[in-house]
């Protein structure tokens, strides 16, 4: 066994936490800089994955397997396939940006915040590379805790409500999945006489349809909540609105992918017959999610809620592609997962920048931005155009392939989902009306540089606090 590359990737953030622990909690800038350095190093460390993974090689590569709790057949078992490589890179790429986005926004408990961010990274990466269901479950629950605190401590006014809702939703799903894992585990033992949590072993056995159905529902509910699929999505808008910018970015860009990834990696391959039987139901919920998310997004006065509901719509497309059960659809889903991570991540960064300037997420109070912040406005525009799937930008590719794939198997479902394309245009353009409106709130002489605006905003905020306002 050479260097345990994946283990390094997964646990480097924990090393970073140890570093942070050594820095006194009052030296905020040192903490920020250290975290930034760690995350950048982390990204650099993970980039070679792209070349290390051989597209023509075995499906799982860079495998690390060590016995962990031999009595129960638990192995420390990691590995990547092509999809995981992309998701890992997406995660490590976004973390330095998330740290930068927190630079000024987080000014309380700075040390704890950054340690939790690093712990969160480890949790997320563990979920992506685990090939043992027990290890997977541990990481799955591990990533839940830091996010709960990030929303609950550094969030907006209703952060407690949002974080509890987020936690309970996800936790209930997680518990059901645990039951599912255990049932599968014992079923495997009954059949083969050996205890194993290894995905490969569990894939090898034949599970009768009735049991498959139950297990698919147990796993599927956990994943569906995470996606989130209609009607389990209502935690998402609250979590997004309340979370700090970096929290929203990671939630949208990476954590939502846990759900679709779970279907891709576990629920569908483990219980293929059940997936086929339940396809009409899942696909229907996906289509509802696409249309419903787009419609509700349309009437949101709060820009973060708008992006949150549009995520419901985008992730509905991902689910649809996965359940097309053909190469085109699944490839489309994977591309859509990555692209949604990039464009929605960018959108939440943009929301954060707006918030730092205007102290509100109400779309009504924005406007005239292109006059004062032309570069920002241009990027805003490009990102939203990509997000609504304008051909030529990356949001289009995934959606198109998903629909092509779905059309091969279920033309009516695909046709209905295409309506989402129209709705996306409305979603895009409604906030735009306000972007174009001449701004009354900002004086036209507001300095363009990001930094000075932020400083002014913080001074104002501090002033408020001093005067008790």
């Amino acid at each position, binding site marked *: 066994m050479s260097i345990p590359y994946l283990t390094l990737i997964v646990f480097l953030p924990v090393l970073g936490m140890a570093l942070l622990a050594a820095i006194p909690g009052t030296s905020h800038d040192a903490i920020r800089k250290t975290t930034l350095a760690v995350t950048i190093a982390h990204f650099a460390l993970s980039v070679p994955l792209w070349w290390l993974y051989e597209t023509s090689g075995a499906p799982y590569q860079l495998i690390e397997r060590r016995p962990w709790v031999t009595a129960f057949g638990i192995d420390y078992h990691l590995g990547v396939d092509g999809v995981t490589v992309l998701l890992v890179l997406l995660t490590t790429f976004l973390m330095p940006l998330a740290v930068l986005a927190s630079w000024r926004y987080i000014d309380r408990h700075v040390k704890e915040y950054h340690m939790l961010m690093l712990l969160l990274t480890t949790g997320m990466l563990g979920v992506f590379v685990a090939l043992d269901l027990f290890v997977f479950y541990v990481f799955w629950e591990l990533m839940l805790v830091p996010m709960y605190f990030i929303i609950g401590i550094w969030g907006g006014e209703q952060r407690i409500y949002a974080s509890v*809702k987020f936690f309970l939703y996800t936790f209930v799903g997680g518990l059901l999945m645990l039951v599912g894992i255990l049932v599968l585990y014992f079923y495997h033992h009954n059949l083969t006489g050996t205890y194993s949590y290894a995905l490969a072993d569990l894939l090898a056995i034949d599970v009768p349809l009735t049991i498959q159905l139950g297990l698919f529902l147990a796993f599927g509910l956990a994943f569906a909540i995470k996606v989130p699929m209609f009607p389990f999505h209502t935690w998402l808008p609250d979590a997004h609105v309340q979370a700090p910018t970096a929290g929203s970015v990671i939630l949208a860009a990476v954590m939502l992918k846990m759900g679709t990834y779970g279907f891709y990696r576990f629920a569908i391959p483990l219980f293929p017959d059940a997936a086929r039987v339940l396809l009409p139901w899942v696909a229907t919920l996906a289509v509802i999610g696409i249309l419903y998310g787009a419609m509700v997004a*349309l009437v949101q006065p709060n820009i973060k809620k708008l992006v949150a509901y549009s995520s419901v719509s985008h992730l509905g497309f991902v689910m649809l592609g996965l359940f097309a059960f053909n*190469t085109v659809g699944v490839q489309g889903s994977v591309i859509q997962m990555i692209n949604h991570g990039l464009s929605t991540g960018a959108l939440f960064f943009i929301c954060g920048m707006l918030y730092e300037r205007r102290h509100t997420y109400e779309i009504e109070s924005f406007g005239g931005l292109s006059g004062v912040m032309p570069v920002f406005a241009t990027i805003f525009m490009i990102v939203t155009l990509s997000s609504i799937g304008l051909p030529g930008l990356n949001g289009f590719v995934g959606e198109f392939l998903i629909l092509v794939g779905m059309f091969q198997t279920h033309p009516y479902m695909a046709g209905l989902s295409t309506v989402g394309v129209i709705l996306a245009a409305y979603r895009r353009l409604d906030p735009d009306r306000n972007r174009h409106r001449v701004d009354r709130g900002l004086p036209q002489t507001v300095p363009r540089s990001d930094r000075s605006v932020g400083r002014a905003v913080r001074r104002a905020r501090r002033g408020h606090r001093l005067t008790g306002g």
Partner: protein
Amino acid sequence: MESLLWLIPALPLAGFAINGLFGRKLGDRVVSVIGPGVVGAGFVLAAASFVSLRSMPSAERLLQQTLYNWLPAGEFSASIGFQLDPLSMTMVLVVTGVGFLIHLYSVGYMHGDGGYARYFAFLNLFTFAMLLLVMADNFLLLFVGWEGVGLCSYLLIGFWFEDQAKAEAGKKAFIVNRIGDFGFLLGIFLIFWTFGSVAFADVLPEAATRLTLGGDLAFWICLFLFVGAVGKSAQIPLFVWLPDAMAGPTPVSALIHAATMVTAGVYMVARAHALYEMAPQVLAVVAGIGAATALFAATIGIVQNDIKKVLAYSTISQLGYMFLGVGVAAFSAGIFHLVTHAFFKAVLFLGAGSVIHALHGEQDMRAMGGLKSKLPITYWTMLAATLAIAGVPPLAGFVSKDEILWRTWDGGHSVLWVIGFITAGLTAAYMFRLFFLTFHGSFRGTKDQWAHAHESPWSMTLPLVILGGLSVIGGWIGLPMALGQPLGGIANRFEGWLAPVFEAGEHAAHEPHAIPPIEYGLMTASVAIATLGILVAYWAYLRSPDLPGRVATRSRGVYTLLNGKYFVDELYDFLIVRPFYALSRFAWRVIDDGLIDGLGVGGTGALVKRGSRIVSRWETGYVQGYAVAFFGGVFAILAYYYLFR
């Protein structure tokens, strides 16, 4: 030549990048060289390609270049590839040629505007997207260009975005177009589903074998594609965005909303003609919608007072003619009208822009009049274009419009012919109404405006003169046999040029053949009705200017209906937009907040709370109580084992 095809669209793309990124720093002078320059260079390349296409034998005229495989996914694949056949070549020449002249015109028109560089960046981006659209060798890349032109249209309509109404107009254009795109996408899905490919080379030659004539599949493919065309080309029922699109700068209206983008739907139907020939029912729909739109828009155009609005409805109406042409399977006649329309409608818009420019933004024709002496060049070029669109021989509009009308009659669609015939009269009337109100009579604006009115600079008048000339002689490249034969056997060169593309559908009308006498009869009739239209306009707006007002008061109902544009916008708002928003709000407030969160999540929470309250009542804190419960439990378990085991 073949290996340089990519340069034609790449040039304007480079112009977009340079003007967009560095335009502010480079200064207006450099921008004015780059902006029109890249399009002009594209035209030169296009002309060179045209020469090399002409040198090939007519059946083999095709230039192709594939850059790379863009979307390989499973069995699906689409490439970035370009092709030039006679049809694409024609479109490219129009887009770069007319496009260059309008870019040049913009140098004068937009002079001094704060967003000068941004304007040229967008205009170049538009040209790029439009070239992508007409040069694509597959449906998906065509769709990319299709959406790209829509985006540029949106950006340029809302160019002066400080004005709320203008920003709204841009938004409306984008959204209505998206409804069309929905259809286009479904069409592409169905094409892939049927043919296993989206490349023209795989789909079009296979149409006759894979589709059954008049079958369901052919029907749905063509209908969905046509929905896309209806959106882009502003036909009933999706025409509502085009009149509002006039909020953009006038050269934009000329280029995008008259000469090129809006004709993309016609191009697409012509490009997919092999599919449409398998779906005669859809062709009938195309022809019907085209004729209906032509008449409908013409009736609205006759009561509009905004000079650009008249031209907008006129464009919708002329696009209707083009669809009538392709709908009766006279594909080359439809494309021919597209070309001549690009000439004369560009002049009309640019001329209107020249008038607006001279009057510092005035667009209401009621405040114009007598401008002939102030704007002589504009006057004469506008006259040529107005005569052309009115269908006066031998100008461009007459030749192409009459070809469509004749082919409609010849194909046995006499009702559609009558509609087209009446529309021809209306067209002459409303166009000369515009012309007389603007240039003749006495000036009705302020003294100040009159004093400052002046002819435009050369960069604006030169394009007017060139395009005005083309409006006169441009039609002669496609003289119908009925006129060419007596004139010494001049063949219909335009139809001959496009014949390799459309040969399946065309019955070689460009070959010498016996001319039925009725063709001359119909030709005379349409000249007569055009003359009648002009005379009516002359009578009503120059001889007795109080007549229109009296007519309007006497038939108040009809006038209100026309002036209100048949209240289609209001109808859509009432029937679609409002209910849709209400439903969305219902989904948010009632389903999300009420049912799922309130009953579902909150209900579960409340249930747990109430349950734990009941349970917590047992936790009294008295140890005796717990002891009783404990022993009771032990007793029950023991009893169970002894009694039931």
